[in-house]
């Protein structure tokens, strides 16, 4: 629906844009229209979310409007030929703040003026500043340059003056150094600003740094391959291979989020965007954990993936609480005990109960009950989580508890099977009858 003028932007299942390699979000503004008076068939882009990245301008349609026919679009900064500074006139006082720029759209050689109209509370001047900085920084050029010639050959920084040493890093705070790739860039920048004699001395280190970047790319590639592999393959893998695969995945999962949502870039939209990014992130760890994860575990994993720009527990909780409002495949759940977990919406308690029931009706378990750690081992989940499941099963009447000096154990609930009018009666084929048989055989 983007028409012929703008590229369609891919989105993740939770509505986050899919970024290019090394693309970093710099500013988010809500309630933004994109207008172009010169083109009659320019798509109608009304009150969406505008994201400025190091590489592109992204426009996402508003969530609520199901009637909206417009889809997410993107415009590469490379196509922008000029950004007009906003005119301070009496007229602009009454208008919504707007930013105009000149860009050449696909297809056609014609360059047109596009207007960004901010109907929300966004800080127009700050956005304009960032827009200008990122446009001037030409991060996309640096990308193609470095992949062509390698980092070592970058002679741009030779003059030594700070504001030409690789446009991306001109002024402090202009672009956030975030994630693993952020660390790598920072290292690179520090190296570039050192003495030339040091450059030679540390030539090996430089080579290592560029290798590290390749390693990250390789790791990402392998992870993709592993994921597709584990989904499609069924028979041929042996255990050892599976084990090493799992180990690899563990390693690779912690490699990092390239463009973490930060308070600085997202501003008022911080929690909303964080929430979406989190939803994307937890999908894979959740699958591995059997559909449910403790909030604390998610907190650790998520922050490890972010590397820098850590989030607080409160931020995590707020991000999770916002899931109710979005169409994401995960949800926050609070157990009666107060323990909070993240689970797949498709995760069903019935399935877990069925497995618990199978476990607790084995002859040994009938006699001695099960502990949360027994359940944890069988279900392949953490003991704390297993206990929550057992308590939920108890509240549903499936289990009942036994507290003794030996500990806290759960038994299949036989109370319902016992007749209060005749306490000696054992109904045939009931669970109680099975239990009596097992219990008397052992004594």
């Amino acid at each position, binding site marked *: 629906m983007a028409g012929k003028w703008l590229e369609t932007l891919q989105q993740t299942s939770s509505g986050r844009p899919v970024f290019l390699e090394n693309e970093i979000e710099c500013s988010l503004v809500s309630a933004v229209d994109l207008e172009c008076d010169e083109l009659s068939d320019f798509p109608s882009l009304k009150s969406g979310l505008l994201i400025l990245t190091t590489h592109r301008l992204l426009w996402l349609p508003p969530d609520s409007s199901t009637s909206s026919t417009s889809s997410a679009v993107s415009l590469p900064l490379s196509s922008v030929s000029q950004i007009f500074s906003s005119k301070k006139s009496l007229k602009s006082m009454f208008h919504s703040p707007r930013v105009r720029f000149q860009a050449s759209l696909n297809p056609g050689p014609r360059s047109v003026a596009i207007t960004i109209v901010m109907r929300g509370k966004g800080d127009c001047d700050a956005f304009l500043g960032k827009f200008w900085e990122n446009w001037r920084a030409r991060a996309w050029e640096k990308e193609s340059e470095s992949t062509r010639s390698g980092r070592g050959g970058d002679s741009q920084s030779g003059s030594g003056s700070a504001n030409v040493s690789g446009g991306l890093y001109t002024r402090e705070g202009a672009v956030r150094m975030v994630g693993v790739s952020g660390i790598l860039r920072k290292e690179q920048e520090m190296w570039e600003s050192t003495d030339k004699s040091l450059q030679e001395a540390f030539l090996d280190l430089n080579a290592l740094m560029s290798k590290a970047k390749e390693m990250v790319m390789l790791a990402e590639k392998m992870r993709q391959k592993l994921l597709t592999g584990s989904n499609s393959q069924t028979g041929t893998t042996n255990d050892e291979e599976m084990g090493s695969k799992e180990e690899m995945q563990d390693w690779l999962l912690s490699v990092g989020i390239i463009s973490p949502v930060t308070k600085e870039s997202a501003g008022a939209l911080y929690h909303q965007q964080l929430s979406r990014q989190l939803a994307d992130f937890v999908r894979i760890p959740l699958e591995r954990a059997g559909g449910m994860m403790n909030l604390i575990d998610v907190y650790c994993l998520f922050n490890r993936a972010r590397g820098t720009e850590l989030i607080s527990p409160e931020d995590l909780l707020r991000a999770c609480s916002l899931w109710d409002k979005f169409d994401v495949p995960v949800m926050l759940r609070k157990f009666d005990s107060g323990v909070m977990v993240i689970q797949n919406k498709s995760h069903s308690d019935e399935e877990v109960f069925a497995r618990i029931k199978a476990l607790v009706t084995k002859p040994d378990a009938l006699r001695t009950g099960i502990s949360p750690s027994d359940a944890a081992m069988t279900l392949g989940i953490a003991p704390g989580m297993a206990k929550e499941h057992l308590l939920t099963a108890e509240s549903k009447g499936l289990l009942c508890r036994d507290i003794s000096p030996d500990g806290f154990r759960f038994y299949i609930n036989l109370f319902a099977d*016992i007749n*209060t009018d005749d306490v000696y009666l054992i109904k045939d084929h009931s669970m109680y009858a099975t239990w009596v048989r097992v219990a008397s055989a052992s004594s």
Partner: protein
Amino acid sequence: MQKLGDFKLPHFFNYPPYFTLQPVRDTRNKQVQLWKELILDYCRTQKIFVVGLEEDFPLFSNPVVERSLSHEAREAFLSALVSEGRAEWLDKGHRKCLILWHRIQEWADIILSFVKDNGLEDSVMTVEEIRSGTESRGTELHGIDRTILIRALRLLEQKGKLAIFKGTSTDDEGVKFSL
């Protein structure tokens, strides 16, 4: 099947959760029901009238599965009997409980039939004679708890079936039947 003296215990007496107070309402209700039945049954057959919470009551622990009821659980089950009128606390601290496997009214009826059976309609007996005399031997009244007996007699006195009077020579009370 396990036995406690000559009392036949039900199978679920070896079911460990039976000895842990269940927190889930439906399960707890059933558990309380089963305990009430068992306590009344046991007391009736063993002629036990008073259960002390802090004393060793054979029913409250099961050495076979090494489980015993907590104080809280004992009080919960006996309280359930009290609320149904099948037991009464003997003290405010809930340390002793009078078990009424026959309600007071039922005991009064038993006394009446005992009097009729023995042709004692117009005679005089002491309370102690009713509990341990030759006439009551072999009946349910033999060995009855004194508190329960007095309560049943007072109920009959209210209905004009007898009169209770203080004895002159002994500290025992006398009963004059007048049916």
